[in-house]
């Protein structure tokens, strides 16, 4: 269902921009209702509730582009905003590839219902949301006496409507809901060093959220397994990436497969299309059309229709993902990725995570990374790491304050086993996998 009022306004502003001299115009309006609460040590620490409403206008005049935004919807303010946008184009240089998408790329007859909407998310009374957070925290705090503290449990919900209209006649929108729960727990090491971890669940549908007891228990377990973490010596070993870190790895890779990175020469994959880069088990897909997933959308940020794109097929790097502008710059066609990746995932394999771990004589089960030490231009990768040490196929003691490093090309080629545990906990998702030959820096 579309927010007709916003859509009408978007179309009106497009017309107004044309009247004020824009050759091309596009308006996006988002209306939301948000709620969030945090419960800590049983007390409600925070309640916040809001209704943000914002408009973004993009205009081109003689291929000179400008973008403006505002949340001031008074008619006179909107008129000033349109004038500001057109005025800005006067000092921008013309860029022949800029502008709205080609008409044939715009979404037609799209399915605006991708299972993104659950009325319950907005209707649920605050007391229930607060109680869910309270139960989550209580589960974690009472799970084990070594859980000594908490940074609270949160419940957040969000319903939204998005509409887009442009001067090519596109006018469409969709709405969605999302809700999430998060819990972080704290435990003290024998030397008094604090260890923390947490767990979360996020869904469009309220009934698909993990139960408070599950979230609380996982948060506690993940915290406890960090106790007594130590450094290991500097060495080269296989690394097993768990679901969370594997997804993070995919998120890093996502930066290297965008058309903008290709155009700017800022990706290590620049001349690798059609080549076998990754291990043969690696198939990576971006698919906005899978219903009910976190990154699903019927059309992209400029109204281009959504479609499934296979980025890697059995280790071969197939294609970059483009919006209209970078597609034109590179003489390609948009892939419907204005606004970035959607549901971006590594296809699962057949092994269970336990089977993958069992195959490692000595190595790291990687559960967390910190820092920003990756460079998608050069392919250099270096991150702070923590996890659990594997000996003779078994998880043994926790490790932290170490670093893992490598080269993204070799890392992709080193993915030798892929698990069967793909779950869309967020829009970038990957199952557990094994990567061979990672350098670990420690003692």
């Amino acid at each position, binding site marked *: 269902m579309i927010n007709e009022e916003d859509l009408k306004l978007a179309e009106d502003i497009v017309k107004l921009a044309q009247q004020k001299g824009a050759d091309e115009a596009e308006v996006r309006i988002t209306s939301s209702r948000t709620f969030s609460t945090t419960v800590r040590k049983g007390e409600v620490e925070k*309640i916040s509730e809001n209704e943000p409403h914002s408009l973004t206008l993009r205009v081109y005049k003689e291929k000179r582009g400008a973008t403006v935004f505002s949340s001031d919807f008074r008619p006179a303010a909107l008129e000033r905003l349109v004038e500001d946008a057109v005025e800005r184009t006067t000092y*921008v240089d013309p860029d022949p590839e800029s502008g709205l998408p080609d008409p044939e790329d715009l979404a037609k007859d799209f399915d605006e219902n991708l299972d993104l909407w659950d009325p319950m998310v907005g209707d649920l009374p605050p007391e229930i949301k607060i109680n869910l957070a309270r139960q989550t925290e209580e589960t974690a705090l009472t799970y084990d006496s070594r859980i000594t503290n908490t940074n609270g449990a949160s419940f957040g919900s969000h319903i939204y409507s998005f509409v887009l209209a442009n001067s090519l006649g596109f006018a469409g929108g969709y709405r969605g809901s999302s809700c999430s729960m998060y819990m972080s727990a704290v435990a003290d090491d024998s030397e008094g060093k604090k260890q923390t971890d947490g767990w979360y669940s996020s869904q469009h549908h309220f009934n698909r959220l993990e139960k408070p007891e599950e979230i609380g228990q996982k948060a506690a377990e993940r915290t406890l397994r960090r106790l007594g973490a130590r450094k290991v010596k500097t060495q080269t070993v296989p690394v097993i990436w768990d679901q969370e870190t594997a997804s993070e790895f995919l998120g890093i890779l996502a930066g290297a497969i965008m058309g903008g990175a290709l155009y700017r020469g800022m990706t290590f994959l620049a001349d690798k299309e059609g080549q076998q880069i990754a291990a043969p088990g690696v198939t990576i897909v971006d698919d906005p059309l899978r219903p009910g997933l976190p990154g699903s959308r019927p059309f992209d940020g400029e109204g281009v229709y959504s479609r499934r794109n296979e980025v890697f097929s059995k280790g071969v790097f197939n294609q970059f993902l483009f919006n209209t502008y970078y597609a034109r710059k590179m003489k390609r066609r948009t892939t419907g990725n204005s606004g970035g990746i959607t549901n971006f995932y590594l296809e699962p394999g057949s092994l269970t995570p336990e089977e993958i771990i069992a195959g490692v004589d000595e190595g790291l089960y990687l559960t967390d990374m910190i820092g920003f030490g990756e460079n998608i231009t050069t392919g250099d990768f270096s991150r702070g790491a923590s996890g659990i040490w594997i000996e003779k196929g078994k998880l043994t003691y926790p490790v932290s304050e170490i670093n893992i490093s490598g080269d993204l090309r070799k890392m992709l080629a080193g993915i030798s086993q892929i698990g069967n545990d793909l779950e869309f906990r967020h829009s970038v998702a990957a199952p557990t996998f094994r990567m061979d030959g990672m350098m670990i820096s420690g003692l």
Partner: protein
Amino acid sequence: MSNESTKVLDFFQSEFGIDQKVMSDVLAAALSRGGDFAELYFEHRITSNMHFEEGIVKESSGGIIQGVGIRVVSGDSFGYAYSEDFNLESMRRAAITASQICKGGKPGQPIDATFLQAANLYPITTPSIDVRALEKLELIRRADKAARAYNPAVKKVIAMFSEEYKQVMIAASDGRLVADIQPLVSLRVFVIAERDNKPGQGSNSGAARMGLDYFANRRTPEMIGQEAARIAVQALDAVDAPAGMYPVVLAAGRSGVLLHEAVGHGLEADFNRKKLSNYSDRIGQVVASPLCTVVDDGTVAYSKGSLNIDDEGNLPNYNVLIENGTLSNYLQDRISSKHFDNKLTGNGRRQSFRHAPMPRMTNTYMLAGQSTFEELIASVEKGLYCVGYSGGQVNIYNGDFTFGLTEAYLIENGKITAPVKNANLIGNGPEVLSKVTMVANDFALSEDGGMCGKNGQMVPIGLGMPSVLVSSITVGGTAA
């Protein structure tokens, strides 16, 4: 300059009809179910950006961020709601929403407001938003030209000019009424160099609460462009970094980011009030080498991290956090200072009216020591000299951190030798501070335009540091 802030009151009154009567009405609604305290944070912010790439101005963007954030505090808890609309009904509705944190006590009555005038740390004669676009484009072109001229290996230059003109007005139920104009200009240059198919990257920026005169006097576009190019070009010759534990010299200025991330966040009072930080319950204890004195100073003139009033309406301060190695104070916001029964430090900050304030850093730095930079380097047999960082992350609970290095050199037999690439520093903040064995006399504030994120909120901050020697730290590299 003294009446700058009264202009803000006039602005909100003439533009949106917000006078003392309106504020008092909304505050009364906020306290209608009880509560210790309520506050209204009015914001009107004009932002503008220009993006320059491939020798042309590619895009201009901008907008207006306006609204009022309403907070109702009850003990350590708070309710928060905002209105993007300044009409009385919307604001009153948001106030009632925020009041739901209170269980329904006796309604409170706001005290009549008294306007408090703060000193002006960043008076400006001409706000940049009032200057024609062409003058800003000229700055960008100069930076681009300087970067390209630096070395033939420079292949790509991207330059961005950003500015904001932010007017804030804060009215609180304790009778406090304050206002401020917070300008910010910034120029950032990003360079890609290439030689023999090997890329190198560099970036540099300058930012301050000033008008365009910042780029005339303090930091010229040429300085920013050349510095970005220099970093990109030096990376071309970089060799793989060693892996393992080594002594490390942290360069003056930009290494302040390490102090900010790995120590500063742990000193924010909210974490300590909840006993979540490794510094909790440790006031008066030795937490660093006696060579270390760390301060957070919200009063540095024109710095992007400074504020005339913090985002809860309190005055900024020069706060000593660690004095000769002993922990002396936390960074307080209102809720925490009440909790600790401690004085306010002026560190309540927020990203915008859409966000509730919390304790945040302003300009955080370590004071200079007695040694010279040359003595630090000469004392290292094999180690690393760290100059530039791509960003870091810290585990706030225990101080574990990782920083990526964009510019670093080997130290061999007391001399700086080859540049290294792809290196990380991995360590623990408190542990690293206890391993500081020499502090140099070359203190510098970093001019780089730093932004700090916490719980999803970004605010501009300032950094600084003298050169220091850390006796041992894990270097994550690829050369065995």
